[in-house]
């Protein structure tokens, strides 16, 4: 069973449907006892970092997710959910994240040329920076995925597993041990996205990148 963390951020309909489409047993929950029993956990999220981080704290799930991640259970953050895995974010101020991955979330405006549009929205190719990551076992270098974001993970070279070119090298996916993150939306990235989700729901406790 894969659990989607339901902490009141964004619409989880598409994510749930995409997991069901690959035959996964899915539960959407904020209940710690259910999350503990799950084989894998997905932390979704759209919107603003500060608001999402607060909702996660208010639900009492921030420390819990850190414990669960440290126990070796596969955890996947998607979009804002990925950004929350980092130590901090500089989206409208400075905010503390879960600190599971070293690095910070900063405006992509800091790194890309001024004439490029923000948000970085649309389909872009993945450039693998690490081979043999279990998350990508069913896809190949150069496959396209769908992005919508104005902030990106920076200062996190050690954990980057894929980047995309958008006037600069933008962090597309990260992994640190059993903790994974995708800046793009696998649930909106067609067959490539479904293949990434399939690889994730096949992961076992203790499996690492």
């Amino acid at each position, binding site marked *: 069973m894969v659990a989607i963390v339901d902490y009141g951020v964004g*619409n989880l*309909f*598409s994510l749930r*449907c*995409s997991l*069901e*489409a690959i035959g996964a047993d899915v539960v959407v929950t904020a209940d710690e006892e259910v999350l503990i029993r799950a084989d894998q956990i997905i932390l979704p999220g*759209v*919107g603003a970092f500060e608001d999402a981080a607060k909702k996660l704290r208010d639900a009492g799930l921030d420390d819990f997710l850190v414990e669960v991640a440290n126990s070796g259970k596969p955890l996947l953050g998607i979009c804002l959910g990925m950004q929350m895995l980092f130590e901090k974010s500089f989206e409208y101020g400075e905010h503390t994240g879960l600190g599971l991955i070293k690095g910070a979330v900063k405006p992509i405006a800091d790194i890309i040329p001024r004439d490029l*549009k*923000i*948000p*970085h*929205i*649309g*389909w*872009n*190719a993945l450039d693998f920076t690490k081979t043999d990551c279990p998350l990508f076992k069913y896809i190949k270098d150069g496959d*396209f995925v*769908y*992005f*919508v974001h104005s902030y990106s993970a920076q200062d996190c070279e050690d954990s980057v597993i894929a980047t995309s*070119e*958008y006037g600069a090298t933008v962090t597309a996916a990260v992994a640190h041990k059993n903790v994974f993150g995708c800046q793009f939306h696998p*649930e*909106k*990235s*067609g*067959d490539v*996205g*479904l293949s990434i989700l399939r690889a994730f729901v096949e992961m076992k406790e203790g499996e690492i990148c």
Partner: protein
Amino acid sequence: MITKRIIPCLDVRDGRVVKGVNFDGLRDVSSPVELAKFYSDGGADELVFYDITASSDGRALFTDILCETAKKVFIPLTVGGGINTVADFDRVLNCGADKVSVNSGAIRNPDLIYEASKLYGDQCVVLSVDVKRVGGEFRVFAKGGRVDTGMEALSWIKRCVDNGAGEIVVNSIDTDGVKGGFDIEMLRAVCDIVSVPVIASGGAGKSDDFIDLFKTLPGVDAGLAASIFHFGEVDIRDLKNEMKKAGIPARI
């Protein structure tokens, strides 16, 4: 590099696709779910569902088929038609839409874009605008392009972007249906004043029209069309191969 998007638009009335669609291998030619799956498998980058239903019964059918589609199609879905309130945004977003396109609703209620973008984010709010040349200026038309609002289009578009519209669909009434190519002059004028993605609509008749569009105006992010895709005049996969050959980034 980000790719240029190719977007088929499906007009839906009472839960069925309007206009005959003729493809081999499609069992039900007016099923939005089947057609959406067909386009997604065929390389479409995004889909627009346009609800042209007038009745509330038809509207309920529309949300049903939207849910059904979102369960099977995993590319971005934009919904337009009958979006007048924030509650309408909620209605379609809960059924799996990723973006919501507003047209007449924003003209009637200029606060709608601001309110929706604060609630759902700019990336979720698409301004769709029907534009026609009148007396030497670009004019906004409402009600499916039938009514001249008297508003100058570029200032209207600018105002909507300032209010939070995250993407603009520019439909040129002057070139729509003519199949002689996109309205380059109008699109250039829009690209010059906004920094959000611009989607060109109206006028595509063949693959070369898309190539001309993206070559001439690098600021245009996507091309949208309906009948040329539905009638098989342009195959999306062939189009993308031609784009790639012409040096235009395309997802293949």
